[in-house]
């Protein structure tokens, strides 16, 4: 029996039960909507910390995961809106292209790694290396982020409503970081920068989309690249 046949219809919600179907069957049922304009509302139940739940979606679906999920949840997401009512393991929404991933609990390491687009919202805390190598995606963390967040991030933005751990923005390229709380330390080539109107506008828009319309952008500081590390400097030619 396929997971779709198996899916209990709950109103117009298709329920996919990981206690009854294996992961590949559940993901295939979700991915069956890919490459179409199909919309749909799915609930994944009994996730029990399973890895790679709701990966590789490519349609404007609404997917709710009721429980904790493991590694790489909603990885490579495109167009879909995935809500996790629990915590997620390493690499949530890694390499997301578009769409939205919302985590009601905490996220483990490397949340939003290499995301090219889309919005990732973590309502709890995210641990180390949040937004590592970000390539254009946007991340809002309502709690704190761990050390080495935005390591080598190239473009996109991270807003943190709480505090940031050590070595924030190490080896940063052209991504923007906004932190409301305290920062334990900045990584190599990451510096505090002036908040200008364009940044306040960007942050306002980002927070509004993350459901933080009551948060005042003037409470944030902006961090970015000093651009000393990644450009070749003619002054250093004698070293080579």
């Amino acid at each position, binding site marked *: 029996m396929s997971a779709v046949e198996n899916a209990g219809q709950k109103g117009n919600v298709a329920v996919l039960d990981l206690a009854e179907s294996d992961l590949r069957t559940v993901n295939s049922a979700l991915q069956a909507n890919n490459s179409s304009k199909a919309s749909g509302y799915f609930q994944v139940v009994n996730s*029990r910390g399973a890895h790679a739940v709701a990966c590789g979606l490519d349609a404007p679906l609404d997917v709710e995961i009721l429980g*904790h999920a493991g590694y790489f949840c909603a990885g490579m997401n495109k167009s879909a809106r995935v809500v996790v009512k629990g915590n997620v*393991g390493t690499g949530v929404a890694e390499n997301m292209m578009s769409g939205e991933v919302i985590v009601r*609990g*905490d996220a483990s390491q490397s949340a939003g790694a290499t995301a090219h687009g889309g919005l990732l919202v973590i309502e709890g805390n995210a*641990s*180390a290396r949040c937004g590592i190598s970000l390539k254009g995606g946007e991340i809002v963390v309502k709690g704190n982020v*761990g*050390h080495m967040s935005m390591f080598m991030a190239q473009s996109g933005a991270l807003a943190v409503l709480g505090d940031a751990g050590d070595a924030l923005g190490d080896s940063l390229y052209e991504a923007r970081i906004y932190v409301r709380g305290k920062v334990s330390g900045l990584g190599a080539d990451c510096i505090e920068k002036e908040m200008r109107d364009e940044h306040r506008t960007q942050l306002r828009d980002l927070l509004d989309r993350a459901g933080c319309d009551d948060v005042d952008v003037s409470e944030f500081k902006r961090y970015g690249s000093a651009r000393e590390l990644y450009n070749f400097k003619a002054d250093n030619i004698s070293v080579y």
Partner: protein
Amino acid sequence: MCGIVGLYAKSPAVEAQLGNYLSTMLIEMTDRGPDSAGVALYRDSPDDQGIKFCLRASDPEFDWAGLINAAGNAIGKSAMIERRGSHAVVALEGEPETVEQWLGEHFPGVQMVSAGHRIEIFKEMGLPVQVIDEFNLREVSGSHALGHTRMATESAVTTDGSHPFSTGLDLCLVHNGSLSNHNRLRQRLRKQGISFRTENDTEVAAGYLTWQLSQGATLKEALTSALKDLDGFYTFAVGTKQGFAVLRDPIACKPAVLAETDDFVAFASEYRAFAGLPGIESAKVWEPEPEVVYHWGAA
């Protein structure tokens, strides 16, 4: 990779099911390491018989009664507490060093796996489910337990190289990660009188903690010093007579998650190990911070 789990009971109901719950947790971590598996259990023996030794004989036909008799004559009072698979839990009236030396001379096919008032370690090559079945660990009750399933990197796949490692009374360590300065540290610790049975990196970390504790450090102090003296990747879970502790390296290279309810504290490499625990839906679940020593009980 390696998968590690721990469970500390805060209620009699969880104490009674300790082996059962821990077994489910460890089996869930099977695909983090298929080479060998082991469990350290902390429980009181039926009557207080002093130090109990967990011994392993690779020969399935080994004459345990003969060993008990010989030990009775050579060392002092000795008694079989119970047999489990290739291991036997034996009460012996003697210091661990004396017992191990005597075993080496008279029963070279028998290894000492653990020694202490409450600790029992069972470990073998194979998948967690095989190891748990061999030792019938689901039926065992106790106050706390640690488990490990190994993907070998730093030393050979042998039972001796399996976790948990114990180098001191009632102390054990499970480890996900690898240490890079274990050879030099092993030399230093040998000069301090700590003995090692293998070339394994984790055994050096266990020996390091034993040495620190012997110098009067608390477990928390010993683990804090470990942050300075151990170089490498690690999430450690440490068991002591009455408690357990968790420590991650400064860059949190290896995963770890903790859960706590009124009935238990649970530790694992990944959340899915917790999924079968009672009341986990409403547990406090969090990821331990790097460089922070977490401990429960009289650790």
